[in-house]
Structures are given as C-alpha cells and as structure tokens.
C-alpha cells in the first residue's frame, strides 16, 4: 500500500515540528526517516499513524485520504520505541489483542486468533514464549513481540519509531537484519524512524533525511552517500572533514570545479555558484604528498595503524583537525612530521 504525506505542517505551542513536509512511499518500500532529535521525524511518523493530527496538509494511504481518520480506523501497524507492551497480558494475549477488540462481526473466532498468534510467534522466532509476561522477556524479545502484535491486525502499512533505540549494540545489529527479512517476506510498506545513519543506510530502500521540520533529501542509500544534497546531509552522514575551499564555475563536464589548496576536483555535490565553499572530504578520500606539493599542508599529530591501513590525525596551521585514512603510509613517518594531504574526491557546498 502506498503512503503519502503532502504539505504537512505541525506546531506544538510555538515550536514548529513540521514545516510543509511532503513525502511518498511506494508499495512495498522500506523507508527510513533519518535526522537528529527535534528534526520532526517522530512527529511525522505519529501523524501518519493518526496518533497526532497535522495543523494543515493531508495524509493518504493506498490513495485514500486519511487526514481525519482516527488511529484505530487507519489499519496502521505501529511499533513503539519502548515497546508499549501490555504488562498485565501474556505475550500471546498481547499479540492477539488487536484481533480480540474487533467489533463482533469481523472478530475472528477464538481458535482462529490462537492460530494467528502461533503463526506470528513463529514469524518473530519466539514460538515457546506465548505464556510469558513482558517483564520476563529481554529487550530484543519484547521488541519482537511488539512487532508481532502490530502485524497481527494485518495492517496496510507498518510504522516503527526508533525500533532499536532501547537495545544494546549487539542485539541491535541482529534485529536489524532480521527486520529486513521480515519486511521482505511480508512485503509491507514500512517506514521507520532512526537517528542512526548506519541503520538507515543499511536497512532502507530510500532514506528521508530531515532537519528542523523540513526534508533535506530523499534518496537511495547509495545516492545519499555519493551525492548528499546539502551540507547538513553530508555532515550528518558523518565522518567527513570540513575544509575551506573555493568553487570555480564552468568546468569541462558541465558541473563546477572545486579548488582545495590548489588541487582542482569536480564537485560531487550538486552544482553551486562560484565563490567560497565548505568542502567535505572523507578520510579515505586523501592521499599524502611531500611538503611543497599542492594540497592541504598539515602536521601529523598521531598515527594509528589498523592492519593494512593507517589512520592519521593531522592538524593544519590554524589548528583544524583533519583525519585521513591511507592504505600504506611511507616508512619513517612520525608525529610532528609536516606533510600535505591531497584530496581525491570532494563534495562542496556554499558557505553557510
């Protein structure tokens, strides 16, 4: 089922949580809403679920306008960050809850509910825990139960609010892979909120990057990584060094050219007008050269060898720290040595 939000605005008191946000998820798509806290991603998810209502704008699911439909009538599966399991109910009763509250005619028979619950317990790989209570389960198990409970009502779409937020790192990784499998098996259009860029890039078909109540970019993980649309996106994806640079208009391939310390490279970010720029260069996008070459002159502060690679922590004359990862460092390189970092790829944006 496709999902769309168009021009959604939401204010809480004086705070603008969403500022005219539009987005569309295709049938069967796995979408990530990525952003820092306060970016509006959870609010957007809750509006899609009918847990909040927008001040303006419309929501539709499967082409049907849902804007004024209450949560209980939307047939949306929602998985909460803190699981929100019913503590006084067994795991099986939690999962079956959505079926048992249906109005008389549409409520499945007791045996049918039991069968569905068993099936879902199997799906979330907890077949023997139906009689347990939530307090007796681990965090990962609880989240699986929460997912099974959301799937039991055969929702038209699945929404997950920071589904791994409350789990520790190891469980998180396992559950991440497993969630993708479940998604592929059910084919449900799914949208999940996260502030972890690895999680978003690893899991989603497309990632929606949000900041301050607006969408910065919607793209596939590859495109997002290769061509971040804005400096915010590039910065939020993490790891990149910020370096002052200059954009030169009218390069050969139709894009713009970026000058970093005399080294000229095509801009991998969307084209920008000539002038001062902030360049983002990832650590592995450097080579090193002897002092005097074109590039960024730096002093080596620390070097950490990890197997074949070496991570260099360097500083420019003005004290800006630049990190570079290079395959094979020259022999005899020690802290305090002067060297030049030569960028091999660059993404530049107008100076903010």
């Amino acid at each position, binding site marked *: 089922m496709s999902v769309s939000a168009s021009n959604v605005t939401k204010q809480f008191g004086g705070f603008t949580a969403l500022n005219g946000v539009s987005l569309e998820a295709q049938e069967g798509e796995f979408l990530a809403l990525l952003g820092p806290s306060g970016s509006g991603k959870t609010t957007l998810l809750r509006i899609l*679920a009918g*847990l*909040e*209502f927008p001040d303006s704008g419309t929501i539709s699911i499967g082409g049907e306008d849902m*804007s*004024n439909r*209450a*949560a209980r009538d939307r047939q949306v599966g929602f998985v909460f960050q803190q699981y929100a399991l019913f503590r006084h109910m067994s795991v099986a009763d939690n999962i079956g809850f959505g079926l048992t509250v249906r109005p008389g005619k549409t409520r499945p028979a007791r045996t049918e509910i039991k069968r569905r619950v068993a099936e879902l317990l199997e799906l979330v790989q907890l077949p023997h825990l139906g009689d347990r209570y939530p307090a007796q389960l681990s965090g990962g198990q609880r989240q699986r139960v929460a997912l099974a409970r959301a799937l039991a009502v055969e929702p038209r779409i699945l929404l997950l609010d920071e589904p791994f937020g409350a789990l520790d790192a190891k469980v998180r990784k396992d559950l991440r892979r497993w969630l993708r499998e479940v998604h592929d098996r059910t084919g449900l259009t799914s949208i999940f909120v996260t502030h972890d860029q690895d999680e978003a890039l690893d899991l989603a078909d497309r990632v929606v990057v949000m900041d301050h109540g607006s969408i910065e970019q919607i793209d596939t993980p590859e495109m997002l990584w290769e061509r971040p649309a804005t400096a915010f996106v590039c910065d939020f994806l993490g790891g990149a060094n910020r370096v002052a640079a200059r954009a030169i208009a009218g390069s050969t391939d139709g894009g713009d050219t970026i000058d970093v310390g005399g080294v000229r490279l095509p801009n991998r970010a969307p084209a920008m007008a000539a002038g001062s720029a902030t360049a983002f260069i990832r650590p592995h996008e450097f080579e090193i050269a002897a002092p005097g070459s074109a590039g960024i002159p730096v002093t080596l502060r620390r070097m950490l060898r990890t197997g074949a690679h070496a991570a260099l922590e360097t500083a420019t004359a003005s004290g800006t720290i630049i990190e570079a990862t290079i395959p094979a460092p020259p022999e005899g390189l020690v802290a305090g040595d002067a060297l030049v970092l030569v960028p091999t790829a660059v993404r530049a944006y107008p100076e903010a």
Partner: protein
Amino acid sequence: MKPATATAEPRWLRWVLTAAALGFLAINLALPLAAVFIEGFRKGIAAYAAAIAEPDAISALKLTLIVAAIAVPLNIIIGLSASWAIAKFDFRFKPFLVTLIDLPFSVSPVVAGLIYVLLFGMQGWLGPWLQANDIQILFAVPGLVLATIFVTFPFVARELIPLMQEQGRDEEEAALSLGASGLSTFWHVTLPNIRWGLLYGVLLCNARAMGEFGAVSVVSGHIRGKTNTLPLHIEILYNEYNFAAAFAVASLLAGLALVTLLLKSLLEWRYAGQLAGRGH
C-alpha cells in the same frame, strides 16, 4: 471534526467526568467543611467568641496543645531512629519491623485506647501497683500522650523510610570517611536531605495528634476542664445540644486542618523531589 489526539476522550465526556468528580467532592468534602464554619457562626460572632473563650474550651485547647507538644517530638525521635536503622542498615527481620511500625494504622482508635485501659486501668495489669504508688496514667496526661503516640506512630517513619532508602548511604559514608563524627554527619548531611520529608511527616502527625478522638476518648475519662481535649470537648457540647458552641470549637480544628493542608500542598508543589515517592 478531527480528534485532538488518539488517546483523549471526546470533549463532552471529559466535561461530564470532571463535573461528576467535582460534584462528588463538593458534596462529600467541601460541603461538610463549609458546614463547620457556617454552623459555628450561626449565632453570631459574639456567641462564637464566647464558646471559644469559655474556660472549659480554653483548658481543652491547652490540654490538646500539651499532648501534641509531648507526643509529636517523641514521635520525631522514634521516627528518625526507626528510619535511620531501617533505611541505612541491612538486617534480619527488616520487613517484619516495617510491618510492625505500620501496625497502628490498622488498629481501630478505640482499641488503641482500650489497650491502655487493660494495662493501667483499675483491673489492669499495672493498675493496683500504680494506685499504690499514687501514679496517675489513665484519665491523665500520660495516658493521653501514650494513646496519641500509638495512633500517630507510623506517620514520621513512614514518610522518612522510603525517602532515606532512596538517598542511600553514599553521602554519609563519604562524610565519615572525611573524618566527620556520627552525630555531625547526621546533622550536616542526612538531616538537610530529609528536612522537607520530615516536616511533611510531622505535619500529618501533628494534625492527627491534635484531632485524635477515639483513642483519647477511651483513656481520658472525660473530666470536664481537666482531661478533655478539644475533640472531646466538641463531643460534650454536641451531646448537650449546644450545637453552635460545638461547631465554634470545631471550626478551630477545621482551621488547623486547612493550615495543615495548605502547608502540605506547598511542600508538595515546591519540594516534590525531596519527598518520598513524589520525586518523578
């Protein structure tokens, strides 16, 4: 019409529920309170003043204050001791001791009075000996104090035990390791941390001490002008059909209750984090 949020009741229902609750509270709580003051002033200010200034009323007031002035400080000492021992140390039978401290809450005040009659009454265990040595406990201040301590026993400890447990013993251990003596650790470290909780417990303890009726009714002997506390004085006036005077004296205690509620609410609003179980 779009619903406000997914988990709110419709406006009309909120309205009905609020009105029902407020109506119930108005009839059950506000109305009796108002009745005390209105009935007290029914015969005018002069009659009101006369009822309060009457010698028996004055002596009842004095006795109430004396009993509270002895029982409440004793309860503070007991409460502080109990909570220090229970909250700061780990020992056998702790849950049992806590249950014993709570025990007086589940004993009828009348029974609380009766037990002292069994001990100190003429046919009681110690009665003959007390009489032989001319010691008056029953129908005198000591009996009133004992009965009052009994009914107020849990108030201070109950407030302080969870509070002190919450605070642990790190700070005390730090102070001791820095060379402070036990007493100065208590005075400078523990007490500042629990002062609002202590005040809260004392407030409730005092309200109950000054207002206790059933227990003191049994041990006082109802000797007018001598062993009647204010609540007992009210009963006598009421039973003599001297309603206006009864309510006038009752309004004094109702005033005390209002002051107690006010202070208690102030503590809850301002120092919520420093009272037991209200920190979140």
